[in-house]
């Protein structure tokens, strides 16, 4: 069975149905991209999978790593190895990035019945990953995302992902707002973390990211459903022709 298996998923935001029967399978070791016009339900999909309050799955099922994902609390999903990189990362003043990450990592480990990571090991890891995504230790000591530029926030999401080492990551427009150098850094990070045990779902507007991270499959989301799936060439077609016809 695929690592992530979404079956005929319907979901509401408030009273409005946004996902209308979405079906998608992503296997371990695969990278899939979801593209689609504004308002098609891309971000909603990320939130529903992560368990955000107010984003309610009304029918269908999501199986993740053999578990019923929708039955878990958000933090349990994280501990089970699910990660969502946010399109708009949030600021938490007064809580240092390092403290936030260490608290999160140890909370996940505790839920999995693993011992805390030692302070020294954590610091080593944090230093390495901050460096890999061009953030300084000053960024790591500052309040979470406080005073970060848009690009720095996105790269901080990547640092978090690398440190938490999830089994599966949904990255919601992590590429938007990045200049070309930052885009390459982020893409390089994703490629480094690609492994036969890990899956990715990249939500993106642009072909750009896919020039650097080669997806196994590309899907077009429109009107709350996957309307078309294909190989990397589909992204090129979209870039050329726009969503109009493909999403119709």
């Amino acid at each position, binding site marked *: 069975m695929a690592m992530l298996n979404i079956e005929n998923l319907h979901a509401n935001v408030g009273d409005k149905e946004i996902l209308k029967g979405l079906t998608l399978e992503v296997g371990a070791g695969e990278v899939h991209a979801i593209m689609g016009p504004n308002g098609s339900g891309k971000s909603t999909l990320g939130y529903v999978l992560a368990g955000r309050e107010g984003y309610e799955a009304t029918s269908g099922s999501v199986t993740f790593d053999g578990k019923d994902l929708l039955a878990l609390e958000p933090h349990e999903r994280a501990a089970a190895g699910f990660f969502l990189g946010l399109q708009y*990362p949030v600021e938490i003043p007064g*809580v240092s990035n390092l403290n936030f990450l260490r608290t999160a990592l140890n909370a996940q480990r505790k839920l999995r019945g693993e011992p805390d990571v030692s302070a020294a090991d954590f610091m080593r890891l944090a230093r390495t990953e901050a460096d890999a995504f061009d953030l300084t230790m000053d960024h790591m000591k500052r309040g979470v995302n406080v005073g970060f530029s848009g690009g720095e926030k996105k790269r901080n999401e990547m640092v978090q992902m690398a440190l938490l080492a999830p089994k599966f990551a949904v990255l919601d427009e992590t590429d938007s707002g990045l200049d070309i150098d930052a885009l390459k850094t982020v893409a390089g990070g994703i490629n480094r973390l690609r492994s036969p045990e890990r899956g990715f779902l990249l939500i993106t507007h642009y072909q750009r990211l896919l020039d650097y991270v080669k997806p196994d499959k590309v899907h077009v989301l429109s009107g709350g459903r996957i309307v078309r799936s294909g190989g990397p060439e589909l992204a090129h077609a979209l870039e050329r022709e726009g969503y109009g016809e493909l999403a119709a």
Partner: protein
Amino acid sequence: MAANEQALALAKEQSKYKWGFSSDIESDFAPKGLDEDTVRFISAKKAEPEWMLEWRLKAFRLWQGMESPDWAKLSIPPIDYQDAYYYAAPRKKPTLKSLDELDPEILLTYQKLGIPIEEQKVLAGVEGARKVAVDAVFDSVSVATTFREELKRAGVIFLSISEAIREYPDLVKKYLGAVVPVRDNFFACLNSAVFSDGTFVYVPEGVRCPMELSTYFRINAENTGQFERTLIIADKGSYVSYLEGCTAPQRDENQLHAAVVELIALEDAEIKYSTVQNWYPGDENGKGGIYNFVTKRAHCRGDRSKVSWTQVETGSAITWKYPSCVLSGKDSVGEFYSVALTNNMQQADTGTKMIHLGAGSRSTIISKGISAGRSNNTYRGLVRVGPTAEGVRNFTQCDSLLLGSECGAHTVPYIEVKNPSAQIEHEATTSKISDDQLFYAQSRGLDREAAVALIVNGFAKEVLQQLPMEFAVEAQKLLGISLEGSVG
């Protein structure tokens, strides 16, 4: 029957000791109610000199003509002052055979705070725990003795106020009531008449107190009770850091607590006073709970003297408290760092007064109010600059954080400036804990309560980092625990 005679009879009955004005009667308490005899009884029990009794009586007579203040944004049920004990075995708790008999909720809180088991027993009042706890907390009795000796070598006087009245009458006479006059306010006046015990600290000239002074050390040997009186004097060029309170939830049969704390800093002296207050706040419907009506004031009397108040207030049903600084020394410094957290039906009206009289005096006020449940949390602060105080500076920042939609946060700053050279800054914000922040933390692996605790601690960080290290860690946990179940 007069109070004294009743007490006498009781004391005789209870203890089989011969009544006398000595302090060695084991079971001593005055009957309910308050009159001059009660005051005389208290003074006699403590074998106080005549001047102290006169001081108390004067306070009592003044108090009779005073009225309970009603200007705070608090709803205080009427208090029957005749329906209370003013001298009882302080901090009376039912003796438990073991921790199993303790309210499981309190036990759980102890565990969450990470309080060692032997310390839990002392806090809960388990029979026979004290000696064990002394061993556990201090490693051995000799460690406590070592502390005392180390202080003595440095020349620091650290005693109960009762002992100080007997052993250092001149110092006490000189400073008691010098910062908070007997007639200052209703509760301070009451305290002056009936204070049960408290702490006295004198740090001699040029001495840096070799350790953080904590009532905690002393409370294990001696209880203080509801009308606590604290007097701390830092002589020229000295430094002392004093910790008050305890993060563990404190229950007490006395509903009213009216303490008075006076600090005096002479030239170039510095006093750092930290409080963690976690008295029983009452249940979720506001039933029970302590009324904490405290008068705390510091006098920065000497040039370049400095007083820093740090408080973390999470307990009590009602808090009425304004730790203040009278900055009469030239270039003296006053600081106030406060976190006040209210949940359920709690009410807090707290803040500070910075009275600038000395030229070049400076003050900083950082107040963080956190309201949850149906509670009300008010910051009330005064910054006053006298006409002759040149070049005064003040910075005030008041931030309020709301959890839920049924609580209230209020900021009431008073600014009175009579010298045009003053620079006064005031910043205030009110925010709600956001769904975005909560979800973000949860999606990284924190459960809802841990997420709330993390965000709240971030909000309060500027204040918490003022606390001594080991206190800060406990205070962080305390904020989380105090908010449990408040975010649905």
